[in-house]
């Protein structure tokens, strides 16, 4: 068969070269090479010499079969074949796949892996991080689930997923979602974060890793469904947030909003996905820049609380400018005025009383300016960077700057 390339493409079956050169039939070097097919060195050379002719479809059936047999075993020939074939493809001017294939492909893909649920913007970082972590877990083989991740707690991958299921579960319970099976809410779970985590981790040590993963993921999807159903729409007219986003709840001993709580869940899911990836020597993709932006801004808003928790003295009339660089970064002014109710977390991005605003040139001069990469800052807040070693540009009152950096991880748990 062959492809004719002048103005049309016809593929027809043929029996080999139309013009037979009798004197070449059995005396060709090719036959000797065939008999040496067992030797991979010779085979490799033979195939390499055929790659060009195969790409333009100018060889026999036997030669084609020889090439294909070799290509499944030889990466360098496969790569060259793709390259030569790419050139051959361009020569062919084939019009490409039919239009109807697109719908079929996309539908099939979505059947195999449903897209991330569409949730309101304030819950989107959580939905996206759950998706990323679930993909990471899908890449693991059974033995990798037992790899230690957080030595401080003696937790491996499975324990860490159980911990996430426990802390997500606390929010789910507070929102009134059903507790589900004992796998999700084992006895002794309770309302205290640490107690609940301990109970869930212990319970799942007796369960297969696949079960732990399913429990965590299914609960996360139920949370997303809840936000999808209840989280859209406006709340009070003066507040751009939805009623759900601004609803006050108490979680883990802290008064906060639902918006803050789900953003904290997103943050924790990101940090732990990164912990797992690092422990396994794998790469996990970064969150979308918009999601990094929300989490970064939230971290800035937490600085006054973190400072207070860390034993920092009250600083009236003091503002700090925090410049977060990189995709999803921002430029913020945060007040350290101790007008915060404790233990309360700031209302979350966009809220009236969160204490952080976007920096403008007309803003009050800050006492200190910190400039660092947004991802570094997020990981610092999450307790995964050493404040003394982080790359940061500090201007103004240096001591305050260092105090803030040291305090940033104060709110992070495991």
């Amino acid at each position, binding site marked *: 068969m062959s492809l004719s390339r002048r103005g049309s493409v016809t593929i027809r079956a043929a029996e080999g070269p139309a013009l037979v050169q009798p004197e070449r039939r059995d005396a060709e070097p090719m036959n000797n090479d065939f008999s040496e097919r067992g030797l991979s060195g010779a085979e490799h050379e033979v195939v390499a010499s055929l790659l060009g002719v195969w790409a333009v479809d100018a060889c026999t059936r036997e030669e084609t079969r020889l090439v294909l047999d070799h290509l499944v075993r030889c990466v360098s020939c496969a790569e060259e074949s*793709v390259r*030569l*074939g790419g050139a051959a493809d361009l020569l062919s*001017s084939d019009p490409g796949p039919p239009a109807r294939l697109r719908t079929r492909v996309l539908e099939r893909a979505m059947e195999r892996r449903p897209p991330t649920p569409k949730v309101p913007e304030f819950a989107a970082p959580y939905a996206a991080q759950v998706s990323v972590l679930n993909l990471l877990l899908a890449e693991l083989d059974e033995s990798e689930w037992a790899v230690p991740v957080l030595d401080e707690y003696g937790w491996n991958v499975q324990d860490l997923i159980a911990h996430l299921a426990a802390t997500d579960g606390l929010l789910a319970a507070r929102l009134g979602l059903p507790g589900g099976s004992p796998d999700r809410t084992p006895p002794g779970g309770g309302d205290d974060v640490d107690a609940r985590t301990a109970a869930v981790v212990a319970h799942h040590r007796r369960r297969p890793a696949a079960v732990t993963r399913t429990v965590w993921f299914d609960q996360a999807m139920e949370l997303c469904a809840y936000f999808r159903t209840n989280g859209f729409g406006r709340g009070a007219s003066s507040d751009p947030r939805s009623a759900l986003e601004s609803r006050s709840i108490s979680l883990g001993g802290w008064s906060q909003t639902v918006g803050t709580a789900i953003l904290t869940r997103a943050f924790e899911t990101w940090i732990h996905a990164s912990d797992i990836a690092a422990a396994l020597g794998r790469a996990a993709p970064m969150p979308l820049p918009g999601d990094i932006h929300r989490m970064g801004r939230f971290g800035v808003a937490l600085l006054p609380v973190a400072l207070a928790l860390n034993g920092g003295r009250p600083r009236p009339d003091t503002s700090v400018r925090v410049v977060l660089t990189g995709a999803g970064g921002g430029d913020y002014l945060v007040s350290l005025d101790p007008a915060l109710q404790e233990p309360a977390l700031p209302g979350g991005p966009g809220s009236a009383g969160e204490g952080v605003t976007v920096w403008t040139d007309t803003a009050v001069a800050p006492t200190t300016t910190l400039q660092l990469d947004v991802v570094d800052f997020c990981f610092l807040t999450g307790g995964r960077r050493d404040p003394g070693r982080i790359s940061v540009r500090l201007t103004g009152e240096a001591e305050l700057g260092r105090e803030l950096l040291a305090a940033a991880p104060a709110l992070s748990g495991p």
Partner: protein
Amino acid sequence: MVPDQPADRRTGPDEQAGLDEAWVRRLAAGDEQVLGELYDRFSPLVYGVALRVTRSREAAEDVTQEVFTFLWERPLAFDPGKGTMRSWLALLSHRRAVEVVRAEERRRGNLQANLGALSPGSSAVHEVEDQVTAAEVNGRVRSAVATLPGSLREIVELTYFKDRSYRQAAADLGLAEGTAKSRIRTALRRVADTLAEEGLTP
């Protein structure tokens, strides 16, 4: 075959790595729109590779579906350190297409038989016997071939455009067969190099 970029704009390796990384982030975050974008950009390549290997439109469609489904199900299987998204998709398509052909051959169970998609009378042959109107050949591809030295250009003309086998072309040009084979390979490499500079081949 549609080039990735407009004619006067080339994507350098760093910029491409950034684009690839952004795609992976969106795939991982579960944004279904990005799959449509990647399909629009790369399906001609994926389909073209599969078609060339399998010689069957139906098989090429199946391979295309499998490659993009795999991309969506396992975006973290892409290792940006090993190459671009484009080259990864081309290799996936190539690998899968080769498997399909070999599976078909095993299915037919006859080492002496024609490769499945090619045997006379098989439905695949009827299907691919349909005449397909070719699109206008890209001007840059033509000029890449035209700039080849005469000895390389003439053998491409014979084997590719005039459908001669390499043995026939060797006879036509009075060359040893080994010479013919190596000239075709050299010619394709040069065309690939020229076009790679313009971002047109994997």
